[in-house]
């Protein structure tokens, strides 16, 4: 394998990892603080993509559309918390899973009604459609670099928010001791709504960033949510640091596995056998990694503190 | 006399807080050894380490000379250790008799038996009824567990502990939440067990402890500050200062 290809695939893995982190961080925040499993988190990713797509056509500019779409997805998250999620906090995880599964059906069908059954392509401004040379014959699409940049910026912003702001302090306190935060006289309900909205915005952002590459489509949230689950299981549910590291790990392993596993296999088996077995194994790779991590550390790599 | 249970220098911390601090204690054969201590002294943490739901950071637990410090809870039960719970810990979805019959079933080897309906196994049901009669619940055997009163739940806990016919019984506050009359009845029940089992009794009710115990240990901040007969403990100044004086 040549280095150029390797670098490109590493960048692709990084991009996937960062998108996964944007989705997983909201999941893990909501679970860590609210003890709430939100299957419909993937729907917010999808809605972010659709809203951004519509706004791109309405406003004529992708970046502007993202800026407007972000608060909108946050608002949807906020409303979801107010109307559905709030009544489910006291219920067991089974009820939460079933109700949010119902919510997925509702969101998916709403998207179907509003945007139709076809996917919607999202056009980029000209300056984002080109490629950037990173030295030699290494050409990388500008937009992919933007995704990586935006993902890193969002991750950095989240770290800053959680570790250095008053809201972040409350979030961390709420994750470890809910009643205490309530006892301090802080409006815990408001905090919960904010966390939910924040998670929705992060997932929505991921959807907006991927839409120009894959189109906005119904059900796009349904496969990423499982991968995001794998990320937070490996990282340790409730841990943002764990989610970040696990997201990059999973993103890189998945991408590199799909790209290079057959080359790797052909080193010690016939190329025909490698061609047959490599796709199957690379499809299962991240789940096998998950099983391995769980076998060694059932609480994930960075288990949250005992509550 | 020989020691059934030996706890040697047990330590357990939770995020910098020492819940168990160099705890050493023995329970002799046939002895009823009571552990008292103020709230937050680490009594429940101690029990958890004895029955295996928590693993100590250091120290050893010996049962009849065998090191069981890191043994899984169900294996300790096989060796002959049983426990009751401070907060009633019954299987609420099942009937009163089902709860006790399950405890009896646990003694008969594995339960990978799929064919015969468990409720038709006569000896389990009969023995279960006997035990429930012994704790005064004869007329409640077929009730739903969830429908019983708190006092009745405490008696069920005892019947289940008895079902194990364990050599060592760890009783975690059997009087918790009982009224005066109920407490007296429970003391009478426990008196009937003395000598037949070795018992480690954790209890808040001082009258009960002083009426029942052969020896008493006082636990403060995870450490045993004194051990002795009821009379010795009553006269111990350190104990009075640390604990009894405040009551």
């Amino acid at each position, binding site marked *: 394998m040549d280095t150029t290809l390797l670098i490109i695939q590493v960048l692709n893995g990084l991009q996937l990892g960062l998108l996964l982190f944007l989705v997983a961080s909201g999941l893990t925040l909501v679970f860590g603080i609210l003890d709430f499993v939100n299957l419909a988190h993937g729907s917010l990713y999808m809605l972010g993509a659709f809203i951004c797509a519509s706004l791109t056509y309405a406003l004529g500019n992708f970046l502007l559309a993202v800026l407007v779409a972000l608060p909108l997805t946050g608002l949807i998250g906020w409303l979801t918390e107010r109307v559905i999620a709030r009544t489910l906090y006291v219920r067991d995880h089974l009820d939460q899973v079933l109700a949010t599964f119902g919510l997925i059906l509702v969101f998916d069908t709403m998207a179907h009604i509003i945007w139709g059954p076809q996917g919607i392509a999202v056009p980029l401004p000209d300056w984002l459609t080109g490629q950037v040379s990173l030295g030699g014959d290494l050409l990388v699409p500008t937009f992919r670099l933007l995704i990586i940049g935006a993902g890193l910026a969002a991750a950095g912003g989240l770290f800053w928010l959680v570790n250095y702001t008053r809201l972040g302090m409350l979030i961390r306190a709420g994750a470890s001791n809910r009643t205490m935060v309530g006892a301090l006289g802080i409006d815990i309900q408001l905090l919960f709504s904010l966390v939910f909205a924040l998670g929705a915005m992060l997932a929505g952002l991921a959807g907006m960033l991927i839409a120009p590459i894959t189109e906005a489509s119904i059900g796009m949230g349904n496969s990423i949510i499982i991968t995001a689950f794998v990320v937070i299981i490996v990282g340790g549910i409730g841990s943002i640091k764990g989610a970040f590291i696990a997201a990059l790990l999973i993103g890189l392993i998945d991408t590199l596995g799909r790209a290079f596993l057959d080359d790797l296999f052909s080193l010690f088996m016939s190329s025909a056998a490698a061609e047959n077995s490599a796709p199957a194994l690379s499809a299962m790779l991240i789940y096998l990694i998950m099983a391995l991590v769980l076998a060694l550390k059932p609480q994930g790599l960075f288990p949250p503190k005992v509550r | 006399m020989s020691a059934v249970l030996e706890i040697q220098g047990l330590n357990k911390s939770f995020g910098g807080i020492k819940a168990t601090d160099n705890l050493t204690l023995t329970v002799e054969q046939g002895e009823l050894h009571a552990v008292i201590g103020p709230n937050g002294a680490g009594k429940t943490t101690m029990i958890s380490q004895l029955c295996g739901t928590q693993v100590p950071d250091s120290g050893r637990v010996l049962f009849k000379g065998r090191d069981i410090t890191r043994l899984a809870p169900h294996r300790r039960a096989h060796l002959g250790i049983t426990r009751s719970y401070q907060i009633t810990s019954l299987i609420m979805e099942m009937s009163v008799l089902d709860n006790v019959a*399950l405890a009896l079933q646990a003694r008969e080897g594995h*339960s990978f038996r799929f064919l015969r309906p468990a409720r038709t196994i006569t000896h389990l049901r009969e023995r279960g009824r006997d035990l429930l009669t012994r704790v005064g619940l004869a007329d409640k055997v077929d009730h739903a567990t969830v429908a019983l009163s708190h006092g009745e739940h405490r008696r069920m806990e005892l019947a289940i502990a008895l079902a194990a016919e364990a050599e060592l019984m760890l009783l975690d506050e059997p009087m918790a939440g009982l009224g005066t009359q109920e407490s007296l009845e429970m003391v009478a029940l426990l008196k009937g067990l003395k000598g037949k089992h070795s018992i480690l009794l954790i209890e808040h009710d001082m009258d009960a402890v002083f009426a029942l115990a052969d020896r008493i240990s006082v636990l403060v901040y995870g450490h045993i500050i004194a051990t002795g007969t009821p009379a010795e403990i009553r006269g111990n100044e350190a104990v009075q200062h640390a604990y009894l004086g405040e009551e």
Partner: protein
Amino acid sequence: MTRRAWMTLAVLVLLAIVPPAFYLSGNAFYLSLATRLVILAIAAVSLNLILGYGGMVSFGHAAFVGLGAYAVGIPAHHALYGGWDALATNSGWLQIPLAVGITALFALLTGLVCLRTKGVYFIMITMAFAQMIYYLIVSIEEYGGDDGLVIDSRTELWLFDLDKPLQLYALCFLSLLVALGLVRMIVNSRFGMVLQGAKGNPERMASLGFNTYAYRLTAYVISGAMCGYAGALLGNFTTFISPEMMDWHRSGELMFMVILGGAATTIGPVLGAVIFIVLEEILSSYTIYWQLPFGLLLIVTVLFVRGGLAGLLGGRK
């Protein structure tokens, strides 16, 4: 007999009589609807064993159904197109044990990992393992990948000719009866008492001396294998199988059937399957957006109907 026992009997008698009656009076469609219903009911009944009685919220049971179906489809594929001689057959003597065996093995391997965890971890991990099988099948081009696989000839069985709709239905219905009887027997046995005890209070069960992990794992394997059998029937019914059968939405639907009908009741999952299929049929005949009212119904059921339909209609046990 209790009210619930009467209800159980009534549901089963109706399922035994009504669909064949429709078929014999020229309405083949309703028999085919009922066949799907009964097969999904078997899957729901087996899920109920671990979800209802064992408290294990598996969000991956569709994978077992799918694997069972592929255990019919793959041998049938090789029987027709050659290759992999050991597997190439339409005989039920190989296909059915293969469906049961492969799903039991998958349940054992994944259960070893899943059951080390609790609560929400368990839900997510079962989901993830199901997705793994989904992507595995997608990646194998020989078996159609994403596009699925047509089963050209159905399983050849002793006594039953599965090409005849009425006989296929009879087999499915009898299988449902056996599944119900099996789950009932297990639940009432000493094993079942331990399983239910471990759901109600695992810590107590351990302190009594039960290794709850081993009991849960056994139940998980039994449930997975039963679902695999249901999958083999489903493959024979649809004669077309695809990874879509294992999508986690299908797992969610199975869970919905169990909860809607009444978890930890004998007939609950069957009732749930009946309601699910009938509602899906009615709603989708009115609108292509039938999943919207369906989703709302799910939310409302979870929020307001505790104990499922069996609880509502049949009263407490």
